[in-house]
Protein backbone atom coordinates (compact mmCIF):
# COMPACT_ATOMS: atom_id res chain seq x y z
CA UNK A 1 0.00 0.00 0.00
CA UNK A 2 2.76 2.36 0.97
CA UNK A 3 4.79 1.64 -2.17
CA UNK A 4 1.65 2.06 -4.27
CA UNK A 5 1.12 5.54 -2.88
CA UNK A 6 4.78 6.34 -3.48
CA UNK A 7 4.45 5.26 -7.11
CA UNK A 8 1.40 7.49 -7.57
CA UNK A 9 3.31 10.35 -5.99
CA UNK A 10 6.25 9.89 -8.36
CA UNK A 11 3.86 9.67 -11.32
CA UNK A 12 2.19 12.96 -10.38
CA UNK A 13 5.52 14.69 -9.83
CA UNK A 14 6.95 13.39 -13.10
CA UNK A 15 3.86 14.49 -15.03
CA UNK A 16 4.27 17.95 -13.51
CA UNK A 17 7.95 18.08 -14.42
CA UNK A 18 7.15 17.03 -18.00
CA UNK A 19 4.65 19.87 -18.39
CA UNK A 20 6.95 22.41 -16.79
CA UNK A 21 10.04 21.46 -18.79
CA UNK A 22 8.19 20.83 -22.07
CA UNK A 23 8.86 24.35 -23.49
CA UNK A 24 12.61 23.85 -23.01
CA UNK A 25 12.62 20.41 -24.58
CA UNK A 26 10.50 21.78 -27.40
CA UNK A 27 13.09 24.55 -27.97
CA UNK A 28 15.98 22.09 -28.02
CA UNK A 29 14.32 20.03 -30.77
CA UNK A 30 12.92 23.04 -32.67
CA UNK A 31 16.47 24.35 -33.00
CA UNK A 32 17.47 21.33 -35.09
CA UNK A 33 14.33 21.04 -37.23
CA UNK A 34 14.00 22.28 -40.81
CA UNK A 35 12.38 25.75 -40.49
CA UNK A 36 9.22 24.71 -42.35
CA UNK A 37 8.66 21.87 -39.92
CA UNK A 38 8.91 23.91 -36.72
CA UNK A 39 5.35 25.16 -36.62
CA UNK A 40 3.68 22.89 -39.14
CA UNK A 41 4.57 19.59 -37.52
CA UNK A 42 3.49 18.71 -34.02
CA UNK A 43 6.03 15.95 -33.62
CA UNK A 44 8.46 16.83 -30.89
CA UNK A 45 11.26 14.95 -32.64
CA UNK A 46 12.50 16.22 -35.99
CA UNK A 47 12.21 14.00 -39.09
CA UNK A 48 15.77 14.92 -39.88
CA UNK A 49 18.31 16.87 -37.88
CA UNK A 50 19.25 20.16 -39.51
CA UNK A 51 21.85 22.51 -38.09
CA UNK A 52 21.34 25.33 -40.61
CA UNK A 53 19.73 27.46 -37.92
CA UNK A 54 22.92 27.43 -35.90
CA UNK A 55 25.18 28.36 -38.79
CA UNK A 56 22.78 30.97 -40.12
CA UNK A 57 22.03 32.45 -36.70
CA UNK A 58 25.70 32.58 -35.75
CA UNK A 59 26.27 35.02 -38.64
CA UNK A 60 24.31 37.56 -36.60
CA UNK A 61 23.23 40.86 -38.12
CA UNK A 62 24.77 43.83 -39.91
CA UNK A 63 28.06 42.00 -40.28
CA UNK A 64 28.40 41.42 -36.52
CA UNK A 65 28.34 37.74 -35.60
CA UNK A 66 26.38 36.26 -32.73
CA UNK A 67 29.72 35.27 -31.18
CA UNK A 68 30.33 38.96 -30.56
CA UNK A 69 26.95 39.25 -28.80
CA UNK A 70 27.93 36.36 -26.56
CA UNK A 71 31.30 37.94 -25.81
CA UNK A 72 29.59 41.22 -24.92
CA UNK A 73 27.11 39.45 -22.67
CA UNK A 74 29.96 37.67 -20.90
CA UNK A 75 31.81 40.96 -20.41
CA UNK A 76 28.72 42.67 -18.97
CA UNK A 77 27.71 39.71 -16.80
CA UNK A 78 31.28 39.00 -15.65
CA UNK A 79 31.93 42.65 -14.84
CA UNK A 80 28.64 42.81 -12.93
CA UNK A 81 29.54 39.75 -10.88
CA UNK A 82 32.91 41.17 -9.79
CA UNK A 83 31.41 44.60 -9.11
CA UNK A 84 28.49 43.24 -7.09
CA UNK A 85 30.57 40.87 -4.96
CA UNK A 86 33.09 43.60 -4.09
CA UNK A 87 30.75 46.47 -3.34
CA UNK A 88 27.94 44.51 -1.70
CA UNK A 89 30.25 42.62 0.67
CA UNK A 90 31.90 45.88 1.76
CA UNK A 91 28.56 47.49 2.55
CA UNK A 92 27.22 44.32 4.14
CA UNK A 93 30.21 44.08 6.49
CA UNK A 94 29.60 47.60 7.77
CA UNK A 95 25.93 46.87 8.41
CA UNK A 96 26.50 43.44 9.91
CA UNK A 97 29.53 44.12 12.08
CA UNK A 98 30.36 47.79 12.68
CA UNK A 99 28.81 50.32 15.03
CA UNK A 100 28.08 53.69 13.52
CA UNK A 101 25.68 56.45 14.27
CA UNK A 102 23.48 56.30 11.17
CA UNK A 103 23.26 52.53 11.03
CA UNK A 104 19.53 52.31 11.76
CA UNK A 105 18.34 54.94 9.26
CA UNK A 106 20.76 53.83 6.55
CA UNK A 107 19.73 50.20 6.93
CA UNK A 108 16.06 51.18 6.73
CA UNK A 109 16.83 53.22 3.63
CA UNK A 110 18.57 50.27 2.02
CA UNK A 111 15.62 47.98 2.70
CA UNK A 112 13.27 50.56 1.20
CA UNK A 113 15.27 50.65 -2.03
CA UNK A 114 14.49 46.94 -2.40
CA UNK A 115 10.95 47.94 -3.27
CA UNK A 116 11.83 50.93 -5.43
CA UNK A 117 10.90 50.43 -9.07
CA UNK A 118 13.96 50.93 -11.23
CA UNK A 119 12.00 53.26 -13.51
CA UNK A 120 11.95 56.11 -10.97
CA UNK A 121 15.71 56.58 -11.24
CA UNK A 122 16.07 55.40 -14.84
CA UNK A 123 15.70 58.69 -16.72
CA UNK A 124 18.00 60.85 -14.55
CA UNK A 125 20.57 58.02 -14.58
CA UNK A 126 20.31 57.96 -18.35
CA UNK A 127 20.84 61.73 -18.46
CA UNK A 128 23.95 61.40 -16.26
CA UNK A 129 25.47 58.70 -18.47
CA UNK A 130 24.48 60.54 -21.62
CA UNK A 131 26.14 63.78 -20.40
CA UNK A 132 29.23 61.76 -19.55
CA UNK A 133 29.30 60.32 -23.06
CA UNK A 134 28.90 56.81 -21.69
CA UNK A 135 25.72 55.75 -23.48
CA UNK A 136 26.46 52.93 -25.89
CA UNK A 137 29.21 51.60 -23.62
CA UNK A 138 29.05 48.90 -20.93
CA UNK A 139 29.77 51.42 -18.15
CA UNK A 140 26.10 52.22 -17.33
CA UNK A 141 25.47 48.49 -17.00
CA UNK A 142 28.37 47.76 -14.63
CA UNK A 143 29.14 50.98 -12.73
CA UNK A 144 25.86 50.98 -10.71
CA UNK A 145 26.79 47.52 -9.47
CA UNK A 146 30.21 48.74 -8.37
CA UNK A 147 28.28 51.20 -6.18
CA UNK A 148 26.20 48.47 -4.51
CA UNK A 149 22.88 49.68 -5.90
CA UNK A 150 21.53 46.12 -5.85
CA UNK A 151 20.29 46.14 -2.28
CA UNK A 152 19.12 42.54 -2.62
CA UNK A 153 22.65 41.28 -2.46
CA UNK A 154 23.74 43.63 0.31
CA UNK A 155 20.87 42.23 2.34
CA UNK A 156 21.68 38.63 1.42
CA UNK A 157 25.30 39.00 2.54
CA UNK A 158 24.30 40.87 5.75
CA UNK A 159 22.00 38.00 6.67
CA UNK A 160 24.79 35.52 6.10
CA UNK A 161 27.44 37.51 7.99
CA UNK A 162 25.12 37.81 10.97
CA UNK A 163 25.27 34.03 11.23
CA UNK A 164 29.07 33.98 11.53
CA UNK A 165 30.06 33.78 15.24
CA UNK A 166 31.25 37.18 16.45
CA UNK A 167 33.87 35.48 18.64
CA UNK A 168 35.89 34.85 15.49
CA UNK A 169 36.36 38.48 14.57
CA UNK A 170 36.68 39.50 18.22
CA UNK A 171 39.54 37.03 18.54
CA UNK A 172 41.14 38.50 15.45
CA UNK A 173 40.80 42.01 16.87
CA UNK A 174 42.38 40.95 20.15
CA UNK A 175 45.23 39.41 18.19
CA UNK A 176 45.83 42.83 16.72
CA UNK A 177 44.01 42.60 13.40
CA UNK A 178 42.67 45.88 12.06
CA UNK A 179 39.04 45.96 10.99
CA UNK A 180 40.18 45.79 7.37
CA UNK A 181 42.23 42.64 7.95
CA UNK A 182 39.42 41.08 9.96
CA UNK A 183 37.11 41.73 7.05
CA UNK A 184 39.50 40.42 4.44
CA UNK A 185 40.99 37.44 6.28
CA UNK A 186 38.21 36.32 8.62
CA UNK A 187 34.70 37.42 7.65
CA UNK A 188 35.01 37.45 3.86
CA UNK A 189 36.39 33.89 3.51
CA UNK A 190 33.67 32.62 5.87
CA UNK A 191 31.01 34.36 3.76
CA UNK A 192 31.93 32.40 0.67
CA UNK A 193 28.55 30.66 0.27
CA UNK A 194 26.76 34.02 0.24
CA UNK A 195 29.29 35.42 -2.22
CA UNK A 196 28.85 32.45 -4.53
CA UNK A 197 25.07 32.82 -4.40
CA UNK A 198 25.45 36.52 -5.15
CA UNK A 199 27.72 35.74 -8.10
CA UNK A 200 25.41 33.18 -9.64
CA UNK A 201 22.28 35.28 -9.33
CA UNK A 202 24.06 38.38 -10.58
CA UNK A 203 25.31 36.46 -13.57
CA UNK A 204 21.91 34.98 -14.44
CA UNK A 205 19.94 38.18 -13.92
CA UNK A 206 22.43 40.21 -15.94
CA UNK A 207 22.47 37.57 -18.64
CA UNK A 208 18.66 37.74 -18.86
CA UNK A 209 18.39 41.50 -18.46
CA UNK A 210 16.81 43.07 -21.48
CA UNK A 211 15.40 46.44 -20.46
CA UNK A 212 18.60 48.15 -19.27
CA UNK A 213 20.68 46.77 -22.11
CA UNK A 214 18.12 47.92 -24.67
CA UNK A 215 18.07 51.41 -23.12
CA UNK A 216 21.84 51.85 -23.09
CA UNK A 217 23.25 49.92 -26.06
CA UNK A 218 22.56 51.17 -29.58
CA UNK A 219 25.24 49.92 -31.97
CA UNK A 220 25.15 46.39 -33.25
CA UNK A 221 28.78 45.74 -32.25
CA UNK A 222 27.80 46.53 -28.63
CA UNK A 223 24.77 44.23 -28.65
CA UNK A 224 24.42 41.57 -26.00
CA UNK A 225 22.62 38.25 -26.50
CA UNK A 226 19.11 39.52 -25.58
CA UNK A 227 19.55 42.41 -28.02
CA UNK A 228 20.72 40.00 -30.70
CA UNK A 229 17.60 37.94 -30.10
CA UNK A 230 15.49 41.07 -30.24
CA UNK A 231 16.27 41.26 -33.96
CA UNK A 232 14.03 38.21 -34.32
CA UNK A 233 11.13 39.75 -32.41
CA UNK A 234 9.47 41.33 -35.41
CA UNK A 235 10.33 38.66 -37.94
CA UNK A 236 7.37 36.61 -38.95
CA UNK A 237 9.01 34.94 -41.93
CA UNK A 238 9.34 31.22 -41.49
CA UNK A 239 12.83 31.16 -43.00
CA UNK A 240 14.19 32.91 -39.90
CA UNK A 241 12.68 30.43 -37.46
CA UNK A 242 15.65 28.11 -37.61
CA UNK A 243 18.12 30.84 -36.71
CA UNK A 244 15.80 32.29 -34.07
CA UNK A 245 15.35 29.07 -32.15
CA UNK A 246 18.96 27.98 -32.57
CA UNK A 247 20.18 31.23 -31.04
CA UNK A 248 17.49 31.13 -28.35
CA UNK A 249 18.65 27.67 -27.37
CA UNK A 250 22.29 28.81 -27.27
CA UNK A 251 21.30 31.84 -25.18
CA UNK A 252 19.91 29.56 -22.49
CA UNK A 253 22.92 27.23 -22.39
CA UNK A 254 25.02 29.27 -19.90
CA UNK A 255 22.07 29.50 -17.51
CA UNK A 256 21.34 25.80 -17.78
CA UNK A 257 25.01 25.00 -17.10
CA UNK A 258 25.09 27.33 -14.10
CA UNK A 259 21.90 25.78 -12.87
CA UNK A 260 23.17 22.22 -13.19
CA UNK A 261 26.43 23.10 -11.48
CA UNK A 262 24.99 25.10 -8.62
CA UNK A 263 21.37 24.05 -8.31
CA UNK A 264 21.57 23.10 -4.64
CA UNK A 265 23.19 26.41 -3.75
CA UNK A 266 20.68 28.34 -5.86
CA UNK A 267 17.65 26.70 -4.36
CA UNK A 268 19.05 27.07 -0.85
CA UNK A 269 19.86 30.72 -1.56
CA UNK A 270 16.25 31.34 -2.55
CA UNK A 271 14.76 29.57 0.43
CA UNK A 272 16.95 31.30 3.02
CA UNK A 273 16.90 34.81 1.65
CA UNK A 274 13.70 34.93 -0.34
CA UNK A 275 15.36 36.06 -3.54
CA UNK A 276 13.08 36.41 -6.49
CA UNK A 277 13.94 33.97 -9.26
Amino acid at each position, binding site marked *: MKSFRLTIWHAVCLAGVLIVLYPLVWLAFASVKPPTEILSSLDLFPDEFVFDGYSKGWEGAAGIGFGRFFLNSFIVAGGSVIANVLSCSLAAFAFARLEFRLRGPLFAFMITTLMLPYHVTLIPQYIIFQQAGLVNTFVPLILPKLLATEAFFVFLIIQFMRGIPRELDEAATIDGCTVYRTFWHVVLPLSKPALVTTSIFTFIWTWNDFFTQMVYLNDTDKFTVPLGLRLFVDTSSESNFGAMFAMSALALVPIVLFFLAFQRLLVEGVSTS*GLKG
Partner: protein
Amino acid sequence: MADFRAANQRQAYVFLAPWIFGALALTVGPMVVSLYLSFTDYDLFTTPRWVGLDNFVRMFTDDGRYLQSVKVTSLYVLVSVPLKLVTSLLVAMLLNTRAGSHGFYRAAFYAPSLLGASVAAALVWRALFTSGGPVNAVLAGLGWHTPSWVDDPDFSLWSIILLGVWQFGAPMVIFLAGLKQIPAELHEAASIDGAGPVSRFWHITLPMLSPVIFFNLVMEAIHAFQAFTPAFVIGGGRGGPADSDLFYTLYLFQVGFEDFDMGYASAMAWVLLAVIAIVTAVVFRSARLWVFYDDDGGLDS
Protein backbone atom coordinates in the same frame (compact mmCIF):
# COMPACT_ATOMS: atom_id res chain seq x y z
CA MET B 1 36.72 52.44 24.50
CA ALA B 2 35.62 55.82 23.25
CA ASP B 3 38.57 55.78 20.86
CA PHE B 4 37.62 52.39 19.52
CA ARG B 5 34.09 53.60 18.85
CA ALA B 6 35.31 56.69 17.03
CA ALA B 7 37.66 54.61 14.94
CA ASN B 8 34.83 52.20 14.22
CA GLN B 9 32.69 55.10 12.98
CA ARG B 10 35.32 56.18 10.51
CA GLN B 11 36.01 52.66 9.31
CA ALA B 12 32.32 51.97 8.85
CA TYR B 13 32.07 54.84 6.41
CA VAL B 14 35.12 53.59 4.55
CA PHE B 15 33.34 50.28 4.01
CA LEU B 16 30.12 52.06 3.14
CA ALA B 17 31.71 54.60 0.79
CA PRO B 18 30.76 52.92 -2.51
CA TRP B 19 27.25 52.21 -1.29
CA ILE B 20 26.71 55.76 0.02
CA PHE B 21 28.04 57.26 -3.18
CA GLY B 22 25.74 54.99 -5.21
CA ALA B 23 22.76 55.75 -2.99
CA LEU B 24 23.27 59.51 -3.41
CA ALA B 25 24.33 59.67 -7.05
CA LEU B 26 22.20 56.88 -8.50
CA THR B 27 19.17 56.67 -6.19
CA VAL B 28 18.40 59.77 -4.09
CA GLY B 29 19.69 62.33 -6.57
CA PRO B 30 17.94 60.76 -9.57
CA MET B 31 14.72 60.44 -7.57
CA VAL B 32 14.73 64.16 -6.84
CA VAL B 33 15.52 64.94 -10.48
CA SER B 34 12.84 62.63 -11.85
CA LEU B 35 10.29 64.11 -9.47
CA TYR B 36 11.20 67.54 -10.84
CA LEU B 37 11.12 66.29 -14.44
CA SER B 38 7.66 64.86 -13.91
CA PHE B 39 6.38 68.46 -13.75
CA THR B 40 8.15 69.45 -16.94
CA ASP B 41 8.17 68.97 -20.65
CA TYR B 42 11.61 67.58 -21.46
CA ASP B 43 13.03 65.93 -24.56
CA LEU B 44 16.62 65.30 -23.38
CA PHE B 45 18.09 67.94 -25.73
CA THR B 46 16.45 71.21 -24.74
CA THR B 47 16.00 72.68 -21.26
CA PRO B 48 13.08 71.25 -19.27
CA ARG B 49 10.01 73.48 -19.39
CA TRP B 50 7.84 73.64 -16.25
CA VAL B 51 4.27 72.55 -17.02
CA GLY B 52 2.89 72.01 -13.52
CA LEU B 53 0.51 69.09 -13.26
CA ASP B 54 -0.07 68.84 -17.02
CA ASN B 55 1.65 65.45 -17.36
CA PHE B 56 -0.50 63.90 -14.65
CA VAL B 57 -3.69 65.46 -15.99
CA ARG B 58 -2.88 64.25 -19.50
CA MET B 59 -2.33 60.70 -18.22
CA PHE B 60 -5.76 60.32 -16.77
CA THR B 61 -7.84 62.48 -19.11
CA ASP B 62 -6.24 62.58 -22.51
CA ASP B 63 -4.17 59.46 -23.11
CA GLY B 64 -6.07 56.35 -24.10
CA ARG B 65 -2.89 54.28 -24.43
CA TYR B 66 -1.87 55.19 -20.89
CA LEU B 67 -5.21 54.05 -19.50
CA GLN B 68 -4.93 50.91 -21.62
CA SER B 69 -1.50 50.19 -20.10
CA VAL B 70 -2.95 50.66 -16.61
CA LYS B 71 -5.76 48.26 -17.44
CA VAL B 72 -3.44 45.62 -18.91
CA THR B 73 -0.96 45.83 -16.04
CA SER B 74 -3.67 45.73 -13.36
CA LEU B 75 -5.22 42.66 -14.95
CA TYR B 76 -1.80 41.04 -15.17
CA VAL B 77 -1.01 41.70 -11.51
CA LEU B 78 -4.46 40.70 -10.25
CA VAL B 79 -4.55 37.43 -12.16
CA SER B 80 -0.95 36.26 -12.46
CA VAL B 81 0.10 36.87 -8.84
CA PRO B 82 -2.67 34.82 -7.16
CA LEU B 83 -2.41 32.14 -9.84
CA LYS B 84 1.33 31.91 -9.36
CA LEU B 85 1.05 31.76 -5.56
CA VAL B 86 -1.62 29.05 -5.66
CA THR B 87 0.42 26.99 -8.14
CA SER B 88 3.60 27.36 -6.12
CA LEU B 89 1.83 26.44 -2.87
CA LEU B 90 0.22 23.35 -4.42
CA VAL B 91 3.51 22.13 -5.86
CA ALA B 92 5.31 22.85 -2.58
CA MET B 93 2.72 20.79 -0.70
CA LEU B 94 3.03 17.99 -3.21
CA LEU B 95 6.80 17.94 -2.70
CA ASN B 96 6.58 18.28 1.06
CA THR B 97 4.84 14.93 1.57
CA ARG B 98 7.94 12.80 1.09
CA ALA B 99 10.80 14.36 3.00
CA GLY B 100 14.22 13.83 1.53
CA SER B 101 13.44 12.37 -1.87
CA HIS B 102 12.28 15.50 -3.62
CA GLY B 103 15.62 17.14 -4.54
CA PHE B 104 15.31 16.35 -8.23
CA TYR B 105 11.71 17.50 -8.50
CA ARG B 106 12.39 20.66 -6.56
CA ALA B 107 15.23 21.54 -8.93
CA ALA B 108 13.20 20.71 -12.05
CA PHE B 109 10.22 22.81 -10.95
CA TYR B 110 12.53 25.64 -10.04
CA ALA B 111 14.40 25.80 -13.37
CA PRO B 112 11.84 27.94 -15.31
CA SER B 113 12.23 30.62 -12.64
CA LEU B 114 15.73 31.26 -13.89
CA LEU B 115 15.16 30.77 -17.60
CA GLY B 116 11.68 32.22 -18.02
CA ALA B 117 12.60 35.89 -17.70
CA SER B 118 14.79 35.79 -20.80
CA VAL B 119 14.04 36.98 -24.31
CA ALA B 120 14.72 33.43 -25.50
CA ALA B 121 11.98 31.93 -23.30
CA ALA B 122 9.51 34.59 -24.44
CA LEU B 123 10.30 33.79 -28.10
CA VAL B 124 9.60 30.12 -27.39
CA TRP B 125 6.37 31.04 -25.62
CA ARG B 126 5.21 33.03 -28.63
CA ALA B 127 5.74 30.01 -30.86
CA LEU B 128 3.98 27.64 -28.45
CA PHE B 129 0.88 29.84 -28.42
CA THR B 130 0.50 30.64 -32.14
CA SER B 131 -2.15 29.13 -34.37
CA GLY B 132 -0.24 26.00 -35.36
CA GLY B 133 1.54 25.68 -32.05
CA PRO B 134 1.43 22.79 -29.58
CA VAL B 135 -0.88 24.52 -27.07
CA ASN B 136 -3.66 25.00 -29.58
CA ALA B 137 -3.16 21.47 -30.86
CA VAL B 138 -3.63 20.03 -27.36
CA LEU B 139 -6.67 22.22 -26.71
CA ALA B 140 -8.16 21.25 -30.09
CA GLY B 141 -7.64 17.62 -29.12
CA LEU B 142 -9.78 18.32 -26.07
CA GLY B 143 -12.44 19.81 -28.32
CA TRP B 144 -11.66 23.43 -27.50
CA HIS B 145 -10.72 25.51 -30.52
CA THR B 146 -8.72 28.62 -29.73
CA PRO B 147 -7.33 31.30 -32.04
CA SER B 148 -3.66 32.11 -32.28
CA TRP B 149 -3.28 33.37 -28.70
CA VAL B 150 -0.53 35.88 -29.38
CA ASP B 151 -2.40 37.47 -32.30
CA ASP B 152 -5.80 37.75 -30.64
CA PRO B 153 -6.56 40.78 -28.43
CA ASP B 154 -8.68 38.65 -26.09
CA PHE B 155 -6.08 35.91 -25.65
CA SER B 156 -2.70 37.58 -25.94
CA LEU B 157 -2.44 38.80 -22.35
CA TRP B 158 -3.38 35.35 -21.11
CA SER B 159 -0.38 33.80 -22.78
CA ILE B 160 1.81 36.34 -20.94
CA ILE B 161 0.02 35.57 -17.67
CA LEU B 162 0.76 31.89 -18.18
CA LEU B 163 4.40 32.71 -18.90
CA GLY B 164 4.48 34.49 -15.53
CA VAL B 165 2.83 31.58 -13.73
CA TRP B 166 5.29 29.17 -15.36
CA GLN B 167 8.03 30.85 -13.31
CA PHE B 168 6.49 29.71 -10.02
CA GLY B 169 9.74 28.13 -8.83
CA ALA B 170 11.05 30.87 -6.53
CA PRO B 171 7.90 31.24 -4.37
CA MET B 172 7.55 27.44 -4.46
CA VAL B 173 11.00 26.95 -2.94
CA ILE B 174 10.23 29.57 -0.28
CA PHE B 175 6.90 27.87 0.52
CA LEU B 176 8.67 24.53 0.78
CA ALA B 177 11.11 25.95 3.31
CA GLY B 178 8.14 27.39 5.24
CA LEU B 179 6.25 24.09 5.21
CA LYS B 180 9.25 22.33 6.71
CA GLN B 181 9.15 24.74 9.65
CA ILE B 182 5.67 23.64 10.69
CA PRO B 183 6.08 21.23 13.61
CA ALA B 184 4.85 17.75 12.71
CA GLU B 185 3.27 17.44 16.21
CA LEU B 186 0.65 20.01 15.25
CA HIS B 187 -0.60 17.83 12.41
CA GLU B 188 -0.35 14.67 14.53
CA ALA B 189 -2.29 16.19 17.41
CA ALA B 190 -4.99 17.43 15.04
CA SER B 191 -5.22 14.01 13.37
CA ILE B 192 -5.70 12.33 16.72
CA ASP B 193 -8.48 14.81 17.45
CA GLY B 194 -10.12 13.67 14.21
CA ALA B 195 -9.22 16.54 11.84
CA GLY B 196 -9.11 15.50 8.16
CA PRO B 197 -6.52 16.73 5.63
CA VAL B 198 -8.72 19.60 4.42
CA SER B 199 -9.42 20.83 7.91
CA ARG B 200 -5.74 20.55 8.83
CA PHE B 201 -4.85 22.56 5.72
CA TRP B 202 -7.21 25.41 6.70
CA HIS B 203 -6.51 25.42 10.40
CA ILE B 204 -2.83 24.50 10.61
CA THR B 205 -0.98 24.82 7.31
CA LEU B 206 -2.44 28.13 6.13
CA PRO B 207 -2.14 30.03 9.44
CA MET B 208 1.35 28.68 10.09
CA LEU B 209 2.38 29.57 6.55
CA SER B 210 0.79 33.03 6.52
CA PRO B 211 4.04 34.98 7.10
CA VAL B 212 5.55 33.22 4.07
CA ILE B 213 2.41 33.81 1.99
CA PHE B 214 2.61 37.46 2.98
CA PHE B 215 6.26 37.69 1.94
CA ASN B 216 5.67 35.98 -1.39
CA LEU B 217 2.61 38.11 -2.08
CA VAL B 218 4.52 41.37 -1.55
CA MET B 219 7.54 40.29 -3.59
CA GLU B 220 5.55 38.85 -6.48
CA ALA B 221 3.23 41.85 -6.69
CA ILE B 222 6.14 44.32 -6.79
CA HIS B 223 7.76 42.13 -9.41
CA ALA B 224 4.61 41.81 -11.54
CA PHE B 225 4.02 45.57 -11.71
CA GLN B 226 7.39 45.91 -13.43
CA ALA B 227 7.13 43.05 -15.95
CA PHE B 228 8.60 44.07 -19.28
CA THR B 229 10.41 41.45 -21.35
CA PRO B 230 7.46 39.08 -22.01
CA ALA B 231 5.22 41.98 -23.00
CA PHE B 232 7.85 43.35 -25.34
CA VAL B 233 8.64 40.05 -27.04
CA ILE B 234 5.20 38.47 -27.19
CA GLY B 235 3.62 41.78 -28.19
CA GLY B 236 6.08 41.98 -31.09
CA GLY B 237 7.84 45.02 -29.61
CA ARG B 238 4.84 47.32 -29.99
CA GLY B 239 2.28 46.23 -27.44
CA GLY B 240 0.51 43.39 -29.17
CA PRO B 241 -2.80 43.25 -31.06
CA ALA B 242 -4.93 46.31 -30.24
CA ASP B 243 -2.41 47.21 -27.50
CA SER B 244 -3.56 44.19 -25.52
CA ASP B 245 0.03 43.56 -24.29
CA LEU B 246 0.83 47.21 -23.60
CA PHE B 247 2.30 46.82 -20.13
CA TYR B 248 2.98 49.91 -18.05
CA THR B 249 6.76 49.62 -18.29
CA LEU B 250 6.57 48.97 -22.03
CA TYR B 251 4.57 52.15 -22.57
CA LEU B 252 6.98 54.02 -20.30
CA PHE B 253 9.85 52.77 -22.45
CA GLN B 254 8.12 53.88 -25.65
CA VAL B 255 7.29 57.31 -24.23
CA GLY B 256 10.75 57.89 -22.78
CA PHE B 257 13.13 56.25 -25.19
CA GLU B 258 11.30 56.25 -28.51
CA ASP B 259 9.34 59.54 -28.29
CA PHE B 260 11.89 61.13 -25.89
CA ASP B 261 9.02 62.56 -23.88
CA MET B 262 11.06 62.24 -20.72
CA GLY B 263 8.99 64.54 -18.54
CA TYR B 264 5.91 62.44 -19.18
CA ALA B 265 7.85 59.20 -18.67
CA SER B 266 9.15 60.50 -15.32
CA ALA B 267 5.60 61.32 -14.27
CA MET B 268 4.58 57.79 -15.26
CA ALA B 269 7.42 56.35 -13.16
CA TRP B 270 6.29 58.32 -10.12
CA VAL B 271 2.71 57.13 -10.51
CA LEU B 272 4.06 53.57 -10.68
CA LEU B 273 6.07 54.15 -7.51
CA ALA B 274 3.00 55.60 -5.78
CA VAL B 275 0.83 52.64 -6.81
CA ILE B 276 3.43 50.09 -5.66
CA ALA B 277 3.84 51.96 -2.36
CA ILE B 278 0.06 52.08 -1.80
CA VAL B 279 -0.46 48.42 -2.70
CA THR B 280 2.43 47.39 -0.44
CA ALA B 281 1.08 49.53 2.40
CA VAL B 282 -2.39 48.03 2.01
CA VAL B 283 -0.99 44.50 2.06
CA PHE B 284 1.12 45.35 5.13
CA ARG B 285 -1.90 46.79 6.95
CA SER B 286 -4.13 43.90 6.02
CA ALA B 287 -1.42 41.58 7.35
CA ARG B 288 -2.60 42.35 10.89
CA LEU B 289 -5.82 40.57 10.03
CA TRP B 290 -4.52 37.44 8.41
CA VAL B 291 -0.82 36.95 9.10
CA PHE B 292 -0.21 34.78 12.13
CA TYR B 293 3.12 34.97 13.93
CA ASP B 294 4.08 32.06 16.11
CA ASP B 295 6.45 34.11 18.24
CA ASP B 296 5.11 37.28 19.82
CA GLY B 297 7.24 39.42 17.51
CA GLY B 298 4.42 40.79 15.41
CA LEU B 299 4.98 43.15 12.52
CA ASP B 300 7.65 45.70 13.26
CA SER B 301 7.46 47.72 10.12
